[in-house]
């Protein structure tokens, strides 16, 4: 690993300022950034630790669940509030990586990174969540901009994510047994913004919505409503783990299971 300077600012304003330096990098749980640094795939001048900014915690209103950016996957998975309000979200968090990754990895880090096989992007897009940063709020539909690309500016810090509570939702994941990331993950939701279906793991451009499934489920919320709707393979990933055709097939299987699980 190349060496770097390390800072642990005590205020959000100081963190944003420190991140304004050339090649500065924010550090949250480190479960993506540290492996990347170990492989020398990134050479930051300064690493800015966000752990002293008070950005972790979960709060509820009647209609929403808000999760602080530094809240760990384990905290979300085990939260009684999240389990009650949006059980699909707690379930999704419990499937990320492994126990030790969940103890450190955070929702803000996962969304800032926007790995095309990450789990949280599916929940954020399907539930129509809003991402709050130090300077603005960003709707899920505007946030994800392709593989590892987001609407965030270079020194912008995610502070929290607000999820509208859906009437029904579920997440089903077919994971890569070695990496534990999603080969295909499907999040289905029926909420204040209508029926939304988001697919992660499969698309070359990262997470995407499935318009044909959304229309079918809006007309008839049942797994059978998805019978016969095929997913075009254009734009789907094909790699040593799975061909685009296999991923297209898995999308159908996971979507039906998710719809059935959502009840």
């Amino acid at each position, binding site marked *: *690993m190349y*060496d*770097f300077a390390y800072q642990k600012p005590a205020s959000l304003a100081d963190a944003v300022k420190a991140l304004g330096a050339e090649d500065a990098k924010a550090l949250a749980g480190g479960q993506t950034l*540290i492996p990347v640094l170990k492989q020398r795939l990134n050479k930051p001048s300064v690493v800015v630790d966000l752990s002293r900014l008070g950005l972790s915690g979960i709060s509820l209103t009647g209609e929403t669940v808000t999760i602080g950016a530094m809240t760990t996957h384990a905290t979300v998975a085990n939260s009684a509030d999240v389990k009650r309000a949006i059980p699909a979200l707690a379930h999704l968090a419990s499937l990320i990586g*492994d*126990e030790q990754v969940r*103890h*450190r990895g955070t929702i803000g880090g996962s969304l800032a990174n926007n790995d095309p096989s990450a789990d949280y992007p599916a929940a954020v897009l399907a539930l129509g969540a809003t991402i709050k940063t130090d300077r603005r709020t960003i709707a899920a539909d505007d946030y994800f901009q392709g593989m590892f690309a987001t609407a965030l500016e270079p020194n912008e810090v995610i502070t929290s994510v607000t999820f509208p509570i859906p009437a029904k939702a579920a997440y089903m994941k077919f994971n890569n047994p*070695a*990496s534990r990331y999603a080969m295909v993950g499907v999040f289905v939701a029926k909420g204040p913004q209508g029926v939304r279906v988001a697919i992660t793991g499969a698309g070359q451009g990262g997470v995407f919505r499935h318009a044909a499934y959304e229309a079918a489920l809006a007309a008839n919320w049942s797994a059978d409503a998805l019978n016969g709707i095929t997913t075009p393979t254009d734009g789907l990933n094909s790699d040593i783990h799975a061909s685009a055709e296999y991923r297209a097939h898995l999308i159908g299987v996971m979507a039906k299971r998710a719809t059935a699980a959502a009840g």
Partner: protein
Amino acid sequence: MPQVTLTVNGKSASVEVEARTLLVELLREKLGLTGTHVGCDTSQCGACVVHVDGTSVKACTMLAVQADGASVTTIEGLAKADGTLHPMQEMFREHHALQCGFCTPGMVMSAIDLVQSHPEGLTEAQIRHGLEGNLCRCTGYHNIVKAIAAAWPIMHGKVPAAAE
């Protein structure tokens, strides 16, 4: 260079490190605690698991500076001063839960956190899910799962530790 002050196995330590020094490097190279192993470069194997403020984490995926002020427990901190093993270590021995032993320190640290965080009970499926971050190339996991199931009642005071 940054100075890190932390408690390791109950003893306070203050060490000068580079910002890029990993917690596992601090433990092994600065403090000589080589029980914590490194088995991969990809944060996947779990040989390096230690407890930071009571929670199991991969010491290869945490900077030493992130552990400033923390209390760290490694495999060396489990047995009593007189050599009496921790119940989890004892159950690993009893159930033949190790062969080459390379994964064992991380397995034991993950297993202890798993048992401690499930006072309500632990099913076999939960044990297997809880061990997803720990790879073992020797045992096939069955005896590790048995050892953890056997340690649960002892650690939660439900049965007296087996007498010799």
